[in-house]
């Protein structure tokens, strides 16, 4: 289906073990609001990208993630192409 436009959903999160300051602050906030029973929060970033269909789209998405959307030194990413 070349020529069409695909929607790519990307989730970027910190690698396990990397300090997640936002997650910790949000956990605090949930507690303050009386949400008991919350044991952990991890914060990440989400991207929804409209990109023209083409061969090797998978490859290109990975490039976008590695080279720009995620810092693979500290972050991991996963994506789905709809």
């Amino acid at each position: 289906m070349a020529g069409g436009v695909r929607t790519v959903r990307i989730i970027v999160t910190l690698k396990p073990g990397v300090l997640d300051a936002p997650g910790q602050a949000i956990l605090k906030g949930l507690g303050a609001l009386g949400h008991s029973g919350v044991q952990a929060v991890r914060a990440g970033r989400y991207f929804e990208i409209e990109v023209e269909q083409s061969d090797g789209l998978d490859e290109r998405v990975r490039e976008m993630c590695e080279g720009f959307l995620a810092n693979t030194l500290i972050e991991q990413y996963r994506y789905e192409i709809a």
Partner: protein
Amino acid sequence: MNIGIVVFPGSNCDADTYHAIRDVLGHHAQYVWHEERSLDGLDAVILPGGFSYGDYLRAGAIAATSPAVRALGPYVAGGGLVLGICNGFQTLLETGLLPGAMQPNLGGRFRCEFVHLRTERVDTPFTCGLAPGDVLRIPIAHADGRYVVDPAARPALAAHRQIVFRYCDARGDVTPEANPNGAEDGIAGIASPSGAVLGLMPHPERASEDLVGGTDGLRIFSSLALWITTGRRLSGQPVEVH
């Protein structure tokens, strides 16, 4: 006069605001720890600038969950006055005490620089010493200052004269060039309909001394002092002080 300055983890303009009110203006100010549940006995409460809780969720969102901020509702209902500066403004939006929301600056970057503000409303405790149209030169320092409000709420903003300050040029004209962050209608500060609650992005405490930044910002604090010491009420009627 007794003004409370709320200290959140991550507040960083609390001491500056304290300095402006106590050392420059010569009025009494005290710090209020964010865990404080009662604001009784304070003539006004200031939510200072900073990065409360690192602004890690949305600017001001986590501060809005603190006991002190949740005490603001009853405090205002009982006639209290509240001023939110920068992060304090963002916090007031998150609580719903003021309408609208903050978005990242257009251009996506933190901006620290002097801007000009046009005074749109003077019958509030924070602007009673100003004249309509007065232009103030005051610095901004924020990354999330693009004020937005959903279309449905706009008429109400106008109807209740809630817009108090707009970004403008040195001559007082509200232009796109003079708008540092893309805020709707160049809105820099809004108040509750009664005027008891004011939020603004610029930092008046940074423009309170000739040596550093001029004294335009001090006029906002002296308005508040004037309002309180002359015992004015939100009706605008001065009452006898014996």
